[in-house]
């Protein structure tokens, strides 16, 4: 029975590899929580930074990140959901559809820094929005658009065909059918996509580097044409550009922890929602 040993060996190796990956993830999260938790206080979360970020809080960065991700989702969600509806419900296999699909795949593969260059060229300079929340949100919106389209499409496809046929057979128009018999069932799945999108927008640094982020701006924005600080950029500045990098280490860990908690909370929410949705769809069949 020599072969069994080979299998046992291989299985153990694969198990070791898989668990070492999870161990690294766990260690990263553990390290940031352990060193960041002591920094978190009400003053840190609700105060304004001073001394170039060495002292004080990170409120403007939190607010900036919230504005940017909300702005991105407000633009990307309707566009993404409408695209997905068109692709699954209206678009038959054709040249135009194929082109849209290719565009989505291409868009999903565009490096985030290239989105930054694009946002700089189109929104900041050509439309003359300047370095602003508006320019940054629009750039982020295009970046998360593919995620939202793909997850919304999955949600729409998961709705059984019979739901549509029943409505159409009763004489309802196609849009009425979609509105009353398809969308309500696809909604949780679409929500998953948008939550994932918000999480991604909140964590990205490179696109906002060139379109919105302020180095140090200890006040809250007045309009969408203002620059803002943002958590990822603030962390980058504190960790690499600050004159006293060792001294501000606690602030770095605190910022990293807040960013990590925000992004992971969104991702976890999306994962939980998705598994619930999948269970619900299964039970309806």
């Amino acid at each position, binding site marked *: 029975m020599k072969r069994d040993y080979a299998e046992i060996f291989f299985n153990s190796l694969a198990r070791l590899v898989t668990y070492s990956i999870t161990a690294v993830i766990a260690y990263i999260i553990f390290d940031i929580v352990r060193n960041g938790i002591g920094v978190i206080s009400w003053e840190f979360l609700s105060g304004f930074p001073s001394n170039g970020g060495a002292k004080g809080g990170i409120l403007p960065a939190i607010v900036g990140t919230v504005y940017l991700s909300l702005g991105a989702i407000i633009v990307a969600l309707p566009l993404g959901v409408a695209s997905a509806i068109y692709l699954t419900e209206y678009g038959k296999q054709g040249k135009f559809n194929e082109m849209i699909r290719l565009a989505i795949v291409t868009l999903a*593969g565009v490096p985030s820094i290239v989105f930054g260059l694009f946002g700089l060229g189109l929104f900041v300079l050509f439309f003359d929005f300047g370095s602003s929340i508006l320019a940054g949100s629009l750039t982020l919106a295009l970046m998360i658009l593919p995620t939202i389209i793909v997850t919304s499409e999955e949600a729409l496809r998961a709705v059984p065909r019979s739901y549509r046929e029943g409505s159409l057979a009763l004489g309802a128009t196609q849009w009425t059918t979609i509105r009353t018999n398809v969308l309500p069932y696809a909604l949780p799945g679409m929500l998953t996509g948008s939550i994932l999108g918000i999480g991604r927008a909140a*964590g990205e640094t490179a696109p906002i580097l060139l379109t919105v982020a302020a180095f140090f701006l200890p006040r809250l924005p007045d309009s969408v044409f203002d620059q803002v600080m943002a958590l990822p950029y603030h962390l980058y500045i504190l960790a690499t550009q600050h004159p006293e990098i060792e001294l501000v280490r606690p602030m770095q860990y605190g910022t990293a922890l807040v960013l990590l908690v925000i992004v992971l909370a969104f991702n976890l929410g999306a994962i939980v929602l998705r598994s619930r949705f999948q269970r619900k769809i299964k039970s309806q069949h």
Partner: protein
Amino acid sequence: MWKEKAIKFGLMSSASVSVISVALIFLFLFKEGGDFLSSPGIGSLFDTRWTPVSFVNERFGLYPLIAGSLLVTFLATAIAIPFGVLGAVYIAEIAKPREREILKPFIEILAGIPSVVIGFFGLIILAPFVKNVFGLYSGLNALSGALLLALMAIPTIITISEDAIKSCPKSYRQASLAMGASRLQTLWRVVMPASLSGIIAAIALGMGRVIGETMVVLMITGNAPQITASPLESVRTMTATIAAEMGEVAFGSEHYQALFIVGIVLLLFTFALNIFSRLFYRRYGNRS
């Protein structure tokens, strides 16, 4: 009826935003950077030195940046492939259902950790570690960057490869097992070859993610623009160059235009990897 048509038209317009965006991205990169190609000319890109800020001789050679990106990308991919593929095999074939339901989301979490946080972790924990292990002056080098990028590519490779392995028809396995092959033989000689195109698609997609990643390499590869094949040397990637220098250039200057050219080259690399991945993905999609 006009209402139906209007709605359809509205949806179609929304769907074409993706197409328009892709076109605009190419258009605006060329609009901002295109002048560079006529003056100082496309020839100056084929140079071995990137010294955009110099009083004597400004040089915009892309070779060191491309070399930096390729070195980091190949290293990262070489590290990520065994981990990603074995991880996918484990989750798809070996893990118990319960175990799988915990492992999968956990690895997806890794995909969700912001790159700047991973870079920060690398700066504080990994770089000193690499420095000590190899007895270097600094741990900010291609290897440190590649290790972190591998970590970021692994979830992509695992998720898509696992899909590919799972979609291998049951009948293939049953046939192999019925012929008296062991489970391990079935896995290596039947399931894996059948899933290969999906796995290659996964790796290409992971590579695309790695070559386009900015913050991690900016923070941890040391950023010296030089042509080297040594993982222990500092390198500067295309992405890091754009991120680091765009903040300091005068709009419209040659340097500014050159950075957009770097963006175009980078976009072409990722575009090629994407198309490559899609071709393979299709093949595995068609089979099942």
